Protein backbone atom coordinates (compact mmCIF):
# COMPACT_ATOMS: atom_id res chain seq x y z
CA UNK A 1 0.00 0.00 0.00
CA UNK A 2 1.50 3.28 -1.06
CA UNK A 3 1.59 6.26 1.23
CA UNK A 4 -1.26 7.90 -0.75
CA UNK A 5 -3.54 4.97 -0.10
CA UNK A 6 -2.69 4.85 3.59
CA UNK A 7 -3.35 8.58 3.86
CA UNK A 8 -6.62 8.24 1.96
CA UNK A 9 -7.89 5.49 4.25
CA UNK A 10 -6.80 7.31 7.38
CA UNK A 11 -8.54 10.54 6.30
CA UNK A 12 -11.66 8.65 5.23
CA UNK A 13 -11.96 6.78 8.51
CA UNK A 14 -11.42 10.03 10.39
CA UNK A 15 -14.08 11.81 8.31
CA UNK A 16 -16.71 9.07 8.62
CA UNK A 17 -15.99 8.47 12.30
CA UNK A 18 -16.27 12.11 13.27
CA UNK A 19 -19.41 12.51 11.12
CA UNK A 20 -20.98 9.64 13.07
CA UNK A 21 -19.96 11.31 16.32
CA UNK A 22 -21.62 14.55 15.16
CA UNK A 23 -24.92 12.70 14.82
CA UNK A 24 -24.55 10.60 17.95
CA UNK A 25 -23.30 13.18 20.48
CA UNK A 26 -25.82 14.29 23.08
CA UNK A 27 -24.09 17.56 23.89
CA UNK A 28 -24.40 20.09 21.01
CA UNK A 29 -20.98 21.59 21.74
CA UNK A 30 -19.40 18.16 21.24
CA UNK A 31 -21.23 17.88 17.92
CA UNK A 32 -19.74 21.16 16.74
CA UNK A 33 -16.24 20.03 17.69
CA UNK A 34 -16.63 16.71 15.90
CA UNK A 35 -17.88 18.58 12.83
CA UNK A 36 -14.71 20.68 12.91
CA UNK A 37 -12.68 17.44 12.91
CA UNK A 38 -14.73 16.31 9.88
CA UNK A 39 -13.87 19.53 8.07
CA UNK A 40 -10.19 19.03 8.78
CA UNK A 41 -10.39 15.52 7.33
CA UNK A 42 -12.14 16.77 4.18
CA UNK A 43 -9.59 19.56 3.80
CA UNK A 44 -6.92 16.88 4.07
CA UNK A 45 -8.58 15.10 1.14
CA UNK A 46 -8.58 18.34 -0.86
CA UNK A 47 -4.89 18.95 -0.25
CA UNK A 48 -4.11 15.36 -1.18
CA UNK A 49 -5.82 16.01 -4.53
CA UNK A 50 -3.78 19.21 -4.89
CA UNK A 51 -6.87 21.42 -4.68
CA UNK A 52 -4.91 23.73 -2.42
CA UNK A 53 -7.12 26.80 -2.69
CA UNK A 54 -10.26 24.87 -1.79
CA UNK A 55 -8.51 23.07 1.05
CA UNK A 56 -7.47 26.29 2.72
CA UNK A 57 -10.75 28.09 1.96
CA UNK A 58 -12.66 25.14 3.40
CA UNK A 59 -10.71 25.49 6.65
CA UNK A 60 -10.98 29.25 6.87
CA UNK A 61 -14.63 29.61 5.86
CA UNK A 62 -16.20 26.45 7.26
CA UNK A 63 -14.15 25.50 10.29
CA UNK A 64 -13.04 29.02 11.05
CA UNK A 65 -16.12 31.14 10.51
CA UNK A 66 -19.25 29.04 10.19
CA UNK A 67 -18.49 26.70 13.08
CA UNK A 68 -17.52 29.62 15.31
CA UNK A 69 -20.92 31.14 14.48
CA UNK A 70 -22.60 27.88 15.48
CA UNK A 71 -20.68 27.86 18.75
CA UNK A 72 -21.75 31.44 19.46
CA UNK A 73 -25.39 30.55 18.92
CA UNK A 74 -25.19 27.37 21.02
CA UNK A 75 -23.53 29.18 23.90
CA UNK A 76 -26.01 32.04 23.60
CA UNK A 77 -28.81 29.56 24.13
CA UNK A 78 -26.92 27.74 26.88
CA UNK A 79 -27.63 24.29 25.52
CA UNK A 80 -26.13 21.27 27.20
CA UNK A 81 -26.71 17.54 27.36
CA UNK A 82 -29.46 17.56 30.00
CA UNK A 83 -31.83 19.84 28.15
CA UNK A 84 -31.39 17.94 24.88
CA UNK A 85 -34.71 16.50 23.66
CA UNK A 86 -34.74 12.99 22.26
CA UNK A 87 -37.01 11.63 19.60
CA UNK A 88 -39.16 8.56 20.01
CA UNK A 89 -36.98 5.43 19.79
CA UNK A 90 -38.85 4.03 16.77
CA UNK A 91 -38.60 7.31 14.89
CA UNK A 92 -34.85 7.34 15.42
CA UNK A 93 -34.63 3.76 14.21
CA UNK A 94 -36.68 4.71 11.15
CA UNK A 95 -34.35 7.62 10.46
CA UNK A 96 -31.26 5.43 10.66
CA UNK A 97 -32.88 2.79 8.43
CA UNK A 98 -33.81 5.47 5.89
CA UNK A 99 -30.23 6.75 5.78
CA UNK A 100 -28.90 3.22 5.46
CA UNK A 101 -31.32 2.39 2.64
CA UNK A 102 -30.27 5.49 0.76
CA UNK A 103 -26.64 4.48 1.20
CA UNK A 104 -27.33 1.01 -0.20
CA UNK A 105 -29.38 2.31 -3.11
CA UNK A 106 -26.76 4.87 -4.14
CA UNK A 107 -23.86 2.43 -3.86
CA UNK A 108 -25.80 -0.17 -5.84
CA UNK A 109 -26.75 2.34 -8.51
CA UNK A 110 -23.14 3.38 -9.00
CA UNK A 111 -21.75 -0.13 -8.87
CA UNK A 112 -22.01 -0.59 -12.61
CA UNK A 113 -21.34 2.97 -13.64
CA UNK A 114 -18.98 3.52 -16.51
CA UNK A 115 -16.59 5.61 -14.49
CA UNK A 116 -15.52 2.63 -12.46
CA UNK A 117 -11.95 2.47 -13.61
CA UNK A 118 -11.15 6.14 -13.95
CA UNK A 119 -8.39 7.41 -11.77
CA UNK A 120 -8.34 10.58 -9.77
CA UNK A 121 -5.16 12.54 -10.15
CA UNK A 122 -3.52 12.95 -6.77
CA UNK A 123 -0.62 15.14 -5.77
CA UNK A 124 -0.18 16.92 -9.11
CA UNK A 125 -2.21 19.05 -11.42
CA UNK A 126 -2.28 22.76 -12.00
CA UNK A 127 -6.00 23.33 -11.77
CA UNK A 128 -6.14 23.37 -8.00
CA UNK A 129 -3.73 26.22 -7.71
CA UNK A 130 -5.03 29.68 -7.20
CA UNK A 131 -3.49 31.05 -10.42
CA UNK A 132 -5.55 28.84 -12.72
CA UNK A 133 -8.68 29.11 -10.61
CA UNK A 134 -8.39 32.87 -10.51
CA UNK A 135 -7.85 33.28 -14.22
CA UNK A 136 -10.87 31.14 -15.11
CA UNK A 137 -13.03 32.63 -12.35
CA UNK A 138 -12.49 36.19 -13.48
CA UNK A 139 -12.83 35.53 -17.21
CA UNK A 140 -15.53 32.91 -17.74
CA UNK A 141 -17.35 33.09 -14.43
CA UNK A 142 -17.23 36.78 -13.65
CA UNK A 143 -21.03 37.22 -13.79
CA UNK A 144 -21.77 34.55 -11.14
CA UNK A 145 -18.95 36.03 -9.07
CA UNK A 146 -20.57 39.48 -9.08
CA UNK A 147 -23.98 37.97 -8.41
CA UNK A 148 -22.56 36.10 -5.42
CA UNK A 149 -21.42 39.42 -3.97
CA UNK A 150 -25.00 40.66 -4.27
CA UNK A 151 -26.09 37.43 -2.57
CA UNK A 152 -23.79 38.12 0.36
CA UNK A 153 -25.09 41.65 0.66
CA UNK A 154 -28.70 40.47 0.71
CA UNK A 155 -27.86 37.74 3.25
CA UNK A 156 -26.27 40.32 5.53
CA UNK A 157 -29.23 42.66 5.23
CA UNK A 158 -31.65 39.77 5.81
CA UNK A 159 -29.77 38.59 8.89
CA UNK A 160 -29.77 42.03 10.46
CA UNK A 161 -33.45 42.56 9.68
CA UNK A 162 -34.43 39.17 11.12
CA UNK A 163 -32.32 39.60 14.20
CA UNK A 164 -33.54 43.03 15.12
CA UNK A 165 -35.23 43.30 18.48
CA UNK A 166 -38.57 45.01 18.78
CA UNK A 167 -41.00 45.60 15.97
Amino acid at each position, binding site marked *: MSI*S*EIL*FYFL*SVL*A*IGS*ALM*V*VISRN*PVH*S*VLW*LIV*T*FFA*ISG*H*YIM*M*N*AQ*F*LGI*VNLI*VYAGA*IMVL*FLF*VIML*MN*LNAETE*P*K*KNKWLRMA*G*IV*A*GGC*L*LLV*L*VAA*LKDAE*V*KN*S*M*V*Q*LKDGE*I*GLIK*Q*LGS*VLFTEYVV*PFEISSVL*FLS*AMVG*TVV*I*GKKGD
Partner: protein
Amino acid sequence: MNIEYYIVLSIALFCIGIAGVLTRRNAIIIFMCIELMLNAVNLLLVAFSKMHHLKGVAANPNAGIDGQLFVFFIMVVAAAEVSVGLAIIVMMYRNVHSVDVNFLNRLKH
Protein backbone atom coordinates in the same frame (compact mmCIF):
# COMPACT_ATOMS: atom_id res chain seq x y z
CA MET B 1 -6.80 6.51 -6.40
CA ASN B 2 -9.81 5.08 -8.13
CA ILE B 3 -12.84 7.36 -8.43
CA GLU B 4 -15.19 4.86 -6.87
CA TYR B 5 -13.44 5.18 -3.50
CA TYR B 6 -14.29 8.87 -3.48
CA ILE B 7 -17.84 8.15 -4.61
CA VAL B 8 -18.42 5.71 -1.76
CA LEU B 9 -16.84 8.06 0.80
CA SER B 10 -19.00 10.94 -0.36
CA ILE B 11 -22.15 8.80 -0.35
CA ALA B 12 -21.36 7.62 3.19
CA LEU B 13 -20.93 11.18 4.48
CA PHE B 14 -24.11 12.27 2.70
CA CYS B 15 -26.18 9.45 4.18
CA ILE B 16 -24.80 10.09 7.66
CA GLY B 17 -25.96 13.68 7.19
CA ILE B 18 -29.41 12.53 6.14
CA ALA B 19 -29.68 10.14 9.09
CA GLY B 20 -28.71 13.05 11.34
CA VAL B 21 -31.38 15.33 9.89
CA LEU B 22 -34.05 12.65 10.35
CA THR B 23 -32.92 11.53 13.79
CA ARG B 24 -32.24 14.68 15.79
CA ARG B 25 -34.69 17.13 17.26
CA ASN B 26 -32.37 20.02 17.94
CA ALA B 27 -32.65 22.56 15.11
CA ILE B 28 -28.98 23.52 15.34
CA ILE B 29 -27.76 19.92 14.99
CA ILE B 30 -30.07 19.48 11.99
CA PHE B 31 -28.47 22.56 10.47
CA MET B 32 -25.00 21.14 11.08
CA CYS B 33 -25.96 17.90 9.35
CA ILE B 34 -27.05 19.94 6.34
CA GLU B 35 -23.55 21.47 6.27
CA LEU B 36 -22.13 17.94 6.43
CA MET B 37 -24.18 16.99 3.36
CA LEU B 38 -22.92 20.04 1.50
CA ASN B 39 -19.36 19.11 2.31
CA ALA B 40 -19.88 15.57 1.06
CA VAL B 41 -21.02 16.98 -2.26
CA ASN B 42 -18.06 19.36 -2.37
CA LEU B 43 -15.66 16.47 -1.90
CA LEU B 44 -17.25 14.53 -4.72
CA LEU B 45 -17.14 17.53 -7.05
CA VAL B 46 -13.43 18.05 -6.44
CA ALA B 47 -12.75 14.34 -7.01
CA PHE B 48 -14.60 14.43 -10.32
CA SER B 49 -12.81 17.59 -11.36
CA LYS B 50 -9.46 15.87 -10.86
CA MET B 51 -10.71 12.85 -12.77
CA HIS B 52 -11.75 14.97 -15.73
CA HIS B 53 -8.48 16.85 -15.55
CA LEU B 54 -6.55 13.63 -15.84
CA LYS B 55 -8.62 12.56 -18.82
CA GLY B 56 -8.63 15.85 -20.70
CA VAL B 57 -5.38 17.58 -19.85
CA ALA B 58 -3.90 16.84 -23.25
CA ALA B 59 -6.63 18.70 -25.08
CA ASN B 60 -7.22 21.55 -22.67
CA PRO B 61 -4.89 22.47 -19.80
CA ASN B 62 -7.84 23.79 -17.81
CA ALA B 63 -9.96 20.67 -18.20
CA GLY B 64 -12.03 19.92 -15.14
CA ILE B 65 -11.57 23.28 -13.45
CA ASP B 66 -15.32 23.90 -13.46
CA GLY B 67 -15.84 21.40 -10.65
CA GLN B 68 -13.60 23.32 -8.28
CA LEU B 69 -15.18 26.64 -9.21
CA PHE B 70 -18.59 25.17 -8.52
CA VAL B 71 -17.37 24.14 -5.07
CA PHE B 72 -16.29 27.74 -4.50
CA PHE B 73 -19.80 28.94 -5.28
CA ILE B 74 -21.35 26.24 -3.10
CA MET B 75 -19.25 27.51 -0.20
CA VAL B 76 -20.48 31.05 -0.92
CA VAL B 77 -24.11 29.92 -0.81
CA ALA B 78 -23.52 27.80 2.31
CA ALA B 79 -22.02 30.74 4.19
CA ALA B 80 -24.94 33.01 3.29
CA GLU B 81 -27.43 30.29 4.19
CA VAL B 82 -25.83 29.66 7.59
CA SER B 83 -26.03 33.30 8.58
CA VAL B 84 -29.69 33.63 7.63
CA GLY B 85 -30.61 30.25 9.14
CA LEU B 86 -28.94 30.99 12.47
CA ALA B 87 -30.67 34.38 12.58
CA ILE B 88 -34.01 32.59 12.18
CA ILE B 89 -33.12 30.08 14.91
CA VAL B 90 -32.07 32.82 17.33
CA MET B 91 -35.28 34.73 16.61
CA MET B 92 -37.39 31.63 17.27
CA TYR B 93 -35.50 30.92 20.47
CA ARG B 94 -36.23 34.44 21.63
CA ASN B 95 -39.95 33.87 21.14
CA VAL B 96 -40.53 30.35 22.48
CA HIS B 97 -37.27 29.60 24.36
CA SER B 98 -36.83 26.24 22.69
CA VAL B 99 -34.98 24.90 19.64
CA ASP B 100 -36.91 21.65 19.55
CA VAL B 101 -38.30 21.18 16.04
CA ASN B 102 -41.24 19.17 17.31
CA PHE B 103 -42.23 22.21 19.26
CA LEU B 104 -41.56 24.64 16.45
CA ASN B 105 -43.59 22.88 13.81
CA ARG B 106 -46.65 25.04 14.29
CA LEU B 107 -46.92 28.34 12.54
CA LYS B 108 -48.92 30.09 15.22
CA HIS B 109 -48.15 29.87 18.89
